[in-house]
């Protein structure tokens, strides 16, 4: 693969005791593109995500991230929160992890923690109510307002996140990740549990994030209509290894992919074949 990759996964392996979840996996994610990671259940997709976002430490292999300014970071050497803070990698979770007892607005404010922490002079300036802190806080609220508007939740900004409908919670989690101003956005099954209309709105949101923010997106998805519609590049995994990669069109016609899906789950294979037609 040529071009300008933002993320280079090189010979990544992850073992849990005797189980090899990811075996010698290599792929690139292009800058300002949407890369999809697909595969049957248990293929190791979420494990790859957890390695990239620092929740697991890979057994072996390298994960390189190159920022727009050419700054290169080895993600496998950073741990948990530093990947989000320093490498600017944001993620969402397969089972939504919002702060349910906080409002939608507060969720987006927590996401801007590191920027606000600096602005509040590590809390001390904020405690005495310095004007610079008030400006920063207002700017953070404005950014949150922009994102709430984009996901159509401006009217429910002051509602508890746990009270929002499921589809809204999914979008709010994406907005929260975007409020960290990430270079790479990792989405773990963002369309899971959404109906057709909500999925279409999600595709639109992701395309607009790529176009307007220039954020590179890496997503795991089972909803093939979303994958085929928005992905620029698709990587297919099965049993911890990469079995194919290419454009959505190439993937759709790849016999190995069809076999993997047929072998694993008939319905999903049919979905793969039908979604492009």
């Amino acid at each position, binding site marked *: 693969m040529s071009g300008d990759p933002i993320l280079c996964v090189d010979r990544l392996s992850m073992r849990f005791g005797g189980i090899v979840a990811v075996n010698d996996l290599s792929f690139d994610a292009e800058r300002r593109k949407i890369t999809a990671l697909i595969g049957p259940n248990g293929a190791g997709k979420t494990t790859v995500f957890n390695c990239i976002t620092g929740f697991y430490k890979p057994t072996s292999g390298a994960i390189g991230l190159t920022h727009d300014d050419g700054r290169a970071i080895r993600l496998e050497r950073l741990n948990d929160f530093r990947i989000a803070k320093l490498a600017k990698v944001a993620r969402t979770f397969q089972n939504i992890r919002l702060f349910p*007892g906080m409002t939608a607005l507060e969720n987006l404010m927590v996401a801007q923690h590191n920027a606000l922490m600096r602005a*509040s002079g590590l809390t001390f300036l904020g405690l005495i109510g310095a004007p610079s802190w008030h400006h920063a806080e207002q700017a953070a609220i404005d950014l949150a307002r922009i994102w709430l508007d984009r996901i159509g939740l401006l009217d429910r900004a002051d509602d508890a996140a746990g009270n929002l409908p499921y589809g809204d919670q999914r979008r709010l989690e994406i907005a929260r990740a975007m409020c*960290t101003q990430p270079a790479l956005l990792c989405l773990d099954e963002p369309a899971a549990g959404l109906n057709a209309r909500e999925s279409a709105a999600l595709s639109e949101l992701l395309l607009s994030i790529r176009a307007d923010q220039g954020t590179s997106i890496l997503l795991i998805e089972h909803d093939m209509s979303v994958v085929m519609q928005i992905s620029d590049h698709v990587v297919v995994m099965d049993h911890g290894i990469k079995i194919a990669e290419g454009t959505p069109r190439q993937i759709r016609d790849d016999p190995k992919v069809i076999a993997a899906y047929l072998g694993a789950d008939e319905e999903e294979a049919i979905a793969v074949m039908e979604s492009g037609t």
Partner: protein
Amino acid sequence: MGRSVSAPPAAQTSRAPGAAFILKKALISAFVALVLFSLMIGVRTEAGPQGQLVYWTRFDDLAVMVAAVFGGSILVELLRRWWGPVDAVRVVPPSVQSALSLAGRLVAPALLVFTFLVPVLFYNERYILDLAILVLTYVMLGWGLNVVVGLAGLLDLGYVAFYAVGAYSYALLATNFGLSFWICLPLAGILAAFWGVLLGFPVLRLRGDYLAIVTLAFGEIIRLVLINWQTLTGGPNGVTGIPRPTLFGIPLTPADDGLAALLGIEFSPTHRIVFLFYIILALALLTNWVTIRLRRLPLGRAWEALREDEVACRALGINTTTTKLTAFATGALFGGLAGAFFATRQGFISPESFTFHESALVLAIVVLGGMGSQLGVALAALTMIGGFELFRGLDQYRMLVFGMAMVLLMIWRPRGLVGHRAPTVFLKHSQAISSDLVKEGHG
């Protein structure tokens, strides 16, 4: 006895199957009571003068007890029927609702004004003033622990350790180096915060029960060190002769350079009590102000986010280690300040004042108040400490009545007196978040 006679007709008035059920339940309860009490109350045994067994029967007392259980059971069932299912949604008229919310908004300012006026209203009642100081001390401790338990969701059973560190810091600095209260106060706070960080490090990885056990142990370690390090702390004898606070260097004594003499008024020991009252009031309000401010700052929001979901916090780039440590340090700081005040008020401290009982009491105040709610904690401290004094006339039944009141309160309000969370920031209007959604934290 009277209740059991009047209760059955009342049961008849409710629905027929219900009446039979109530009666059956009451009979079963009465039977269980009869079996249990027949030996405990019905027969009284004692050792006679030659060591032989002497016993006599008290069947009238037994009858009274069984009848009371029978009547009580019916009464409880009737109350339950009248109240309806526990989780039923009660429709409250909007007018009542708005009146309630107005009252809710006025509670805090009214309490504050009243608190300021306490020394004026009860100037001649030493007992009330002492009680008020005690209540305010626990309000401050509750607000301090609220940062750790209520906001950050870290269960701390050893909070008294920081109270002790603050108290001994002031006591030892003042008696050994002659430093004044106002210099020692911040030092005591800083030292306690330092110990808070020290405790924080080993427990960072622990959650829930494990965290509770280690913090509990920490509290005991501090107390045992205080008992056994005799050369420094005086061991079980404690530290005596701790100096009283001065007003800008002017002592509140009957001496010629005392405040009363300078003002040309007659000396009264109440002056010092009133002075102490306003010191602890100022310290408690400082705690409250800082906590309210912190909640609106990124640090406080990160504490609450940590309570809600630690994994999500890490995914957002929040350093959970420093966030937890700052919560421990902030809570400990306020505990230390309260401890220094305690030392100067008592004039004498010993390790006996810093037992687990204190930690449990402060934790109970936070839980009862509604975790995270400032007003709730203040009300809970008033209820716990004030209520405890209120029941003093009941002598040995005090603990029993008090415990029952606690149980009833927790049934009625399982998430504390103030069971909802107020958002820290809002776009249009701030609406309270129901406690069902707010997490309690798990470590």
